[in-house]
Every structure is written in structure tokens, then in C-alpha cells.
């Protein structure tokens, strides 16, 4: 279990570690970042639907997402 925790932490640290050598990205270098598939949620309609299903079947919820009320889901 401890090993699994360390693996998860390690995966998360890779992008953070690379932040140490940040070079400013100029506006004209951001073409790839602006592509639709690079969005946090490229398909918001589907993402909202999947969140609703997960919310009704699992105990954990939460994240940087605006909106959404409760439901009487069983």
C-alpha cells in the first residue's frame, strides 16, 4: 500500500519537477496548448454527465468545477 502511494506521488511530481527549469512560453508558441483536445475538459457535456454518474455511485466527489446540484440518486 505504501508503495502504491509512493508511485502515485512520483507520477504527480514529474511535471512539477520539470517546472524548476521553466522557460517563458511566448504567445506564438502556444498553438498546441490552444488545441481543443488540450482543454481541461474537451467535451464538457460528456464530462458533466460522467461526473453525475460517478457522484451517484461513489463516496468521493469534488474538484475545480463550477455548478451542479444534488440528486436523489440511488
Amino acid at each position, binding site marked *: 500500500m505504501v508503495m502504491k502511494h509512493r508511485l502515485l506521488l512520483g507520477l504527480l511530481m514529474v511535471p512539477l519537477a*520539470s517546472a524548476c527549469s521553466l522557460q517563458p512560453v511566448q504567445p506564438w508558441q502556444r498553438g498546441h496548448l490552444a488545441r481543443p483536445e488540450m482543454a481541461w475538459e474537451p467535451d464538457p*457535456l460528456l464530462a458533466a454527465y460522467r461526473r453525475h454518474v460517478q457522484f451517484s455511485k461513489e463516496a468521493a466527489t469534488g474538484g475545480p468545477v*463550477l455548478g451542479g446540484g444534488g440528486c436523489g440518486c440511488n
Partner: protein
Amino acid sequence: MRARSATLLALSQAALALPGLATADGETLQTDYLYSRYEEASLPAARSASGSASPRFRIDTHLLRASLAVDDSNFGLDLNYETLSGASPWFILPDAEGRPVQVMSGASIQEQRTALQASWNRSLQTLLDGLDASATLGYSSEDDYRSLSGGAELGFSPEGRQLTYTAGFSYSSDTLQPTRGASSPTVIASAQKRSHSLYGGLAWVLGPETVVQASLSYLGNSGYLSDPYKLAYLTDTASTTADERPDGRVAWALTGRLRQFLPRANAALHLDYRWYRDDWKIESHTVDLAWYQTLPGDWQLVPSLRWYSQSQAYFYAPYYRRERADGFASSDYRLSPFGALSGRLAVSKRFGGWLLGAGVEHYQAKAGYALGEVELENPGLVQFTSLDLRVSWQF
């Protein structure tokens, strides 16, 4: 890349997904429709108290979104209509060997849910360069449940910096009026529940192909948090008691997201992780991995994999010997220790201003997928398949 609210993303990226839609000026109306058929696998005979397999839920969902971009503002309207039928887990008995077996709700449940959500986003660059604001207001209605919700968010991207700051809050006020079993002494007539959340996030552009985001969320729930349709079994008296949970719940979630574009493959890699902990002593980990592959001819293929794990609520048990000293009791599988794996495959194609897509997802919850050891697996853990079809178009 600026990290914006989900609402803004809903409006701007859905629009960008269609060729020629991101106009420099004027108004643009974008509409999206999603149909989903969600079907849970039957409860196997070996896990059923009746000794025979029992069908579970089937849900048909229709989601319609319209968004209008005018100058610096976006307005959105979401309509959600779903119909639900089937049976749900009721309580759990021990069999002759003490193995937990599930009792399902007797009569077939038939329900509808209708939800409407309005959203608004606007650039506030006249106040401060790089500032934008979003707000939502929603209402959801079921036969036995009403929910009124709202929220607001601010995003700030300082000029010439690699960072974007986001902060927001949401609030929901819900009313339960159970219809099934209303004459039973264990079912309440009416109850209230309130939920609120606060979150703050920071996104970094690490390079021309890499962006990451970290965020912290606080969630608070108060009021009636039990399930009026579930019971718990007491072996000493061979009787059932009402599902009874604390009337408050506080949770924290830490989320990390990575988006990496791979020019050679013409694909984007998505990696999301969430750690969750609440004062019901539930701790959870979620990892989501997706690959967005752009193919010739305006096709896109998206395989994805999700792993989820949670520990149990401190008052949960599949069944009890006698009532707990604090009076709490719940055998709900959603409060049990389990893990879940789901795989999804989606395909879409653009036809001029139209986009057609389809996807299939299979989800399986099992004690064996959990991070820690699980002594007794809840027999009501769910397994489902979801099929979805979607159409997007512009006017």
C-alpha cells in the same frame, strides 16, 4: 493556456471544436445534444438473498446545451432529462456462513429527473487585464427530490506570466420528499440538505506542449445526509433499522491535472489525479488517463482508463450485531471499501459544421480493486455499461 471555469470551457471549447466556428466578431450559437443509455448488470444470484439474479437500474439521459457567444460574454443553457427504472439495494443479510447477501428493493422503481442550468461568463479586462468571471444557477426536480444550486468563479491570468489563478464557490439547497415507503416508520416525510464548496487552483504552462494544474477543494454538507430508502440489518434482534448517518460532513479534495501534447503522434495525453478525505473517515484516490488521438479525415479516437479506490465510512458495516452506541448505521455500498476500474472508448467525426460522436464505457466496482485490504466485500457493488451518442451543430 488559460485555465478557465468548466462553464467557460463548455462554451468556448465546444465552439472551437467545430471548424470555422471561432469567429473574431459577431454572435455564435452552438448547440450540443447527448443521449446516453446507462445499464447496470443484474445482481448475481450468488450475492442475492433471494438466491436468484435481480435486475438493477437502467437510465436514459438526454442532455441539451445551447451556448451563445456575444462580444466578451458567453451565455449557456443546459437541459437534462432522464428516466430511470429498476431496483436498488435495500439492506444486507448474513447467509448461513455469515457471508453478506443483498436484499433488493421490491417493486420496480420508475422515476424522472429534469434539470436546468444557466451559465454566464464574461471577460473583466476593463477592470483588470486577464480577469474573467463565471456564474451558474441551476434547478433539478425529481419525484422525491428538488435541488436549487448556484456558484461563481473568478479566473486571473497575469499578462506575460505562465500562471493562471482560479477560485470559486458553489452552493446547493436540496429538499427530499420520499415517495416510496412513505407510510413506513423508518422513512422520513420531508428533509433538507445543504451543500457548499470552495476551491482554488493554479495552472502552470510548463512548455509549448505541457500544462499542469493543481487545485484544492473544500466541501461541506449539512442536514439530512441519510438514505431514506435503505435499511441496515441487526443480527441480535433479526430486525432492520433505518439508514442513519451524521448530519454533517466535511471533505477536502486535492486535484492534479496534466495535459501533454505529442506533435509526432498528433495526440494529447490527459492525466488526472484526485485525493479525497472526509470526516466520515473515507479516503479516496482517483486516476484518470485519456489519449486524444486526432486522425486524418477529421476523425478523433479517445480511449481512456479510470481507477478509483475508497476506504469505508467509520460507521459503515454490511450488517450489524446490534445498534451502535452513536446510533449511526449504513450498509450502503457507496460507503463501503471498494475500488473500481472503468474503460471507455469514444469516436467522433466532423462533417463541416456538424460533429457526430459515439462512446461506450464499462465500469466495474470490486473489493479487489481497492488500495487496501477489504475484509468483507459489499454484495451490492455496481457494474454498469454506458453507451452515448452525440451531435453538435452551429447556427
